[in-house]
Structure formats: C-alpha cells, structure tokens
C-alpha cells in the first residue's frame, strides 16, 4: 500500500498529492491518503468519481483509493 501523508495540509493539496502518486500504484492496488483537512472527506471521493478511480473508504483521517484505470 502506498501511503501519502498529507496531515496538516489544506485542500487542494491532499488531492494534488493523490493525483501525483496514483500512477505509482498498479491497477488494483490501493493508495492510502492521510489527511485531516475537513474538505478531504468530500474531495477525495469526488476526485475518484471525476477520475474514474475507486474510493474504497475512510477511517478517521485515512482515505483509501484503489487504482482501477
């Protein structure tokens, strides 16, 4: 699992970091984004919808995204 630590960063930085690192994951692999900005809970799933990736879920400040394309 690729972990992208964005704790303390404000939006849109966590989404930018996710977009930069998703290519490092193979198809079917998961990227875990650590983010405590309140907008991340909204914007990471929205990014997945817009970019055709799978939002797996979140637990507190950890958001998991599976690369599917």
């Amino acid at each position: 699992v690729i972990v992208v630590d964005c704790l303390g960063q404000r939006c849109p930085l966590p989404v930018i970091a996710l977009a930069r690192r998703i290519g490092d994951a193979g198809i079917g692999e998961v990227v875990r984004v650590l983010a405590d900005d309140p907008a991340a809970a909204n914007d990471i799933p929205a990014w997945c919808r817009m970019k055709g990736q799978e939002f797996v879920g979140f637990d507190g400040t950890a958001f998991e995204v599976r690369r599917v394309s």
Partner: protein
Amino acid sequence: MDVHAGKATYLDAATAAPLHPVAREAFLAALEDGWADPDRLYTAGRRAGRLLDAARAATAESLGVRADEVSFTPSGTSAVHAAVLGGLAGRRRAGRTLVHSAIEHSAVLHAATQHAATQHGDAVAVGVDLLGRLDLDEWRRAVAAPGVALASLISASHEVGTVQPVATAARVCAEAGVPLYVDAAQSIGHAPVPPGWSLLTASAHKWGGPPGVGVLVVRKGTRWLAPYPGDDLYRPRPQGALDLPAVVAAAASLRAATGEAAAEAVRLAALVDRIRATVAATVPDVEVVGDPVERLPHLVTFSCLYVDGEALLHALDRHGFAVSSGSSCTASTLRPSHVLEAMGVLSHGNVRVSLHRGTKEADVDRFLAVLPGAVADIRKEAGM
C-alpha cells in the same frame, strides 16, 4: 500585479445585485417623508405610515399575498431568523423538531442551532442528490415523524442554483399538518415560487433593492410567536426603527424586477447555458455542478480540480471579475461549503457566477476567455 485595465465586471448578484435604477429613484423620493416614525399619529408620522402601507401593499402584490401578511425586517438574515424561530415558537405545543434540507442557507442552520441550545429542540437535516435536489422520500419520513414543529426548505440553492421541489414538499407538509417555511431569497425577483408554504422570506439586495431590507411573509392561519422581546407577540414587527426609504426602494424595485423577470430569465438562462457548456469544454478536470435544467436562471457553479479557490478568486479579481466561492479556503470557518458537502461534489477550486440585469453577453464572453488561462496558471504553480 493588476492586469485589468477596464471597468470591473460584477458577477456576484447572488450575494448582492447592483441597485436597480427604480430603487434609487424611489429611495431618493422617500427620503422626504421617510425619516419619521410611521407609528406616530401626527402628520409627519402619518405621511411615513402611508409610505410604509404603500410599500407593504406593493410588496404583497408582487408576491401574490395579502398586505397584512407582509413584514419588513432590517435584513434578509433577520427575516430568516424571525421565520425559523418564530415559526418554531408558534408551534411549541406541537413539538420542538425543525426539519430542514441539508442545503439551507447558514442563517437557517444558525437559527436551528440556537433553537437546539435554548429550547431543547432538535433539527433533522434531509439530504439531497448529486444535483442538489431534495430527497423527497426522506423529507416525507422526516416531516411525518412525531413532534415536528416546522419544516424549512430553500426555494433554490443559493450556491448551485438547483430549484427545489417546493410544491411537492409543501403538499407533504400539508398532509402532515406541518407548516412549511421557504427561504426564497434567491428566487424572488428572478423566478416564481410555487404556493403551499406558510412562511416565506426574501432579501431586497438580491433583487436589486438596497441592502438592509428583509421581507417576512406569514400566511393567515399560521401561528407565529415573537422569538425576541417586543410588545406584540403574535405579529412580526421590526426590531427598532425601519429604514423606511430603503423599504420603499425595495418595494418599488421588487415590482420592477418581477415585471422584468420572465424576459430576464430567458436572457440570463441562455448566458448560463453558455457558461456551463464553455467551462466544461475549455477547462480540463472541471465539474459544473447543480441541475442543468431545473435551476435558477442567473446562477451557475463549477469546481476545478487541483485549484485553490481563494487563488482563483484573486486571479479573476485581477482580471476584473467579481465572483464568489464555496471552497473552504474562502470561508471564515475553513470548512468546505455544507451545500457542496451535502451534494458530494468537489468543494475546492469552486466558483459561483451569478448574473444580473446589467450583465452583458460580452461580459460573459470575456470571463469565459480569461478563465481557462487563470485555472491553468494556478495548476502550473501547484505543479499539476
């Protein structure tokens, strides 16, 4: 760096529309008699009273209600607070629950918070879909639950423009015996509001009236109880002296705006269509949000991936465009807009463009020409 040389183009009518020329004329004319207290019995007071009566009658006619159902308040926000808290207080025997959509204006949510804190009341938020439209099944269940005192629904989203199913929501409320309050601030003067509601509020500076005038309508048969100190508990009264010249200007401009609304709606809706289509085509990784058809004629919102909303507002301002944003970085709370959150759409890089009677086609085209470059510059700086 100021790259803008010409006149600024104001595209934030949903915050405050530029003053309608009729408002200016009426305001100046009303200064002559509008300084006096309309409640006094001497001649000057009676003259002021006649101005207020005429303003109330004209407003009632524009809204299709009775004159004695209309009150003026010192702002749209104070009208909202009076409607929510007074509507709840009037129904205390029925219950203490406020049902509201998740996309109400923050003034409604703040009133709900106060209701919870001071009246041991509670508030139930009803969700919306991805386009920002009320979930009617959830609304039906929430309104029919025991102990519901009042239901609150915005006529159309002030952030994304999606028109809400007011007529159906009102029917559901009527079946449950719950009064419906409609916050119509973004619709009045622009688009019709279906009947069936018990309380309605509006704000003059959204239709081209002056700032500092709110309108509260309480339909006959609706129990309303003053939530603040005053000598008339059962009838909404302004807190302190009204700005009577502004009230007169508000009433006159409402009549003018209502008269122009149908033609303006056609003109502005076409410009909004152009914005929706062009933004989607010329800005990569953008999400144009809100219902493309069932929407306010003058308002459009989109979000740009990887873009800081505040940076984009400043960039557009440097190019001479005034727009607003629901992104968290532009909010005092540093939280994303609760409306965009409830819809589940992208909240960063968010821009709301709202047009008015002074907006020209060329203004929109200039904006559309500048936007892609402004977005690209910010993305480049962020390394995207």
